[in-house]
């Protein structure tokens, strides 16, 4: 039933319907970018598309909100 995405080349399991953010969180990955000025780690905060803390690049596309983006088989995620 589960499938995998890769996070920096490492496979992470996904239950169909999970967001990229939920899959990362479940795998213990709780930050995936750093801030512009302070270089502070960021991951999920509001979890519902409001705060934009969880921006992430999937398949080389410009950053999107990991909490809203449903994971799809074969997605390749790069963290900062």
């Amino acid at each position, binding site marked *: 039933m589960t499938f995998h995405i890769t996070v920096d080349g490492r496979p992470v399991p996904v239950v169909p319907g999970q967001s990229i953010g939920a899959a990362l*969180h479940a795998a213990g990955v709780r930050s995936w970018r750093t801030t512009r000025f302070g270089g502070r*780690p960021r991951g999920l905060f*509001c979890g519902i598309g409001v705060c934009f803390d969880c921006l992430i690049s999937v398949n080389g596309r410009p950053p999107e909100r990991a*909490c*809203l983006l*449903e994971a799809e088989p074969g997605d390749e995620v790069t963290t900062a």
Partner: protein
Amino acid sequence: MTGAPYDLVVVGGGPAGVAGALTAALAGLRVALLDSGARLGGQYFRHAAVPEREPGLDRFLLQARLLDGRADVLTRHQVWNVSREPGGDLTVHALTRDSSGERPVTLRARRLLIATGAHDRPLPFPGWDLPGVLTAGGAQALLKGGGVLAGRRVVISGTGPFLLPVASGLARAGAAVLGVYEANGGLGLARHPLLALGKAGEAAAYAAALARHRVPYRTRHAVIAAHGEREVEAVTVARLDPDWNVLSTRIVGCDTLAVGYGFVPQIELGTQLGCETRGDPDGSPVLRVDAAQRTSVPGVWAAGEPTGVAGWRQAEVEGRIAGRAIVGEARPIARRGPDGVLLRRRRQWRAFGEALQRAYPVRPGWQSWLRDDTLVCRCEEVPLARVREALELGATDARSVKLLARPGMGWCQGRVCGYAVSCLAGEAPRPPRRPVAQPVTLGALAEAAPEDSPDEAAQ
């Protein structure tokens, strides 16, 4: 853009939007409903592909099933602007994503129902931007939508009855909930305001769930700082006086913190169209509506939290009332008088919502939890010192603080820090001014311009 306008476009697929859309669709109106999520439900009825059992969820899912096929249900659509055409119809601009990437979608509507819900209202405190610190709603969304526990050892803090379902949900799912710290109250669960509001059953169920999992519930306590290097590792829990000034503190080790201090109604589609607002009892700007849920702008209705935070039952009732009024306007021959039962329920739930807001206000002492280097705005990384500096330079309101120090100028457009910045500037939060409610690409903006729209020319 499709040719004929919809009789009704509903924005938001939670209990208010689905009830409004279904009422209108059952009466034969041509209806479209847009929601940003992958499934209908909004925040309260967020559910996985195979839903858990939840009070009210069966009823909601039945309504959603009935709507499917009777209306155009567009999930994964984010509405970023609604504007009025010269002819009087409304244009709804949205973005959606499919295998080929993001693309703009434009709908025309004779009428609009704003049912966009609310989001958590966080307060800043030292360390609140550490990974592992989430909003209470964020922790709930992970659990309900993805079946994921926010953490193993979780502390919950903030104010309001919403902390209780978050705590019991996490505990049931196997997290060790180390404490629920409610900044207000002082009475404990045995005299919880839910009891006085005729919700004894609900209060008792939460109390039982917390007791079963041995979750401590402490009133007049709050987390005032989070600590850790790359993630949260511990929090400072403070005992508070009635104004939320700190009396004493202790450190609690944990891997996750969920915080929530009430809700911010999402009203920007209404303010884009010029709808009048009013202040909810907790100071939040909400859309002013009449007895039929009409806003001050003709053709625009609103239901649920954007008209005042009162929970999912009120949202459904308001959605149904709005739907009936919309049918009455679209089909004068089918017009029916107001439904007395709905009106009575709406009065009750409104009173309930307002009583809860009065029982769980945000008290000014939280400002004493901040240090000079505490980030107020997470997006632009604006610390308290820069906000204070702007105030000392002569800024007298949140807007001038924003112009001088940049809090609220980042990705979230002030949704997260707006309330705190208003408090720090000494004023009540003002209605948002966001002509573009979601980030859009220049390409999508260009396609949205009527003169550049190939579909428009083909009509």
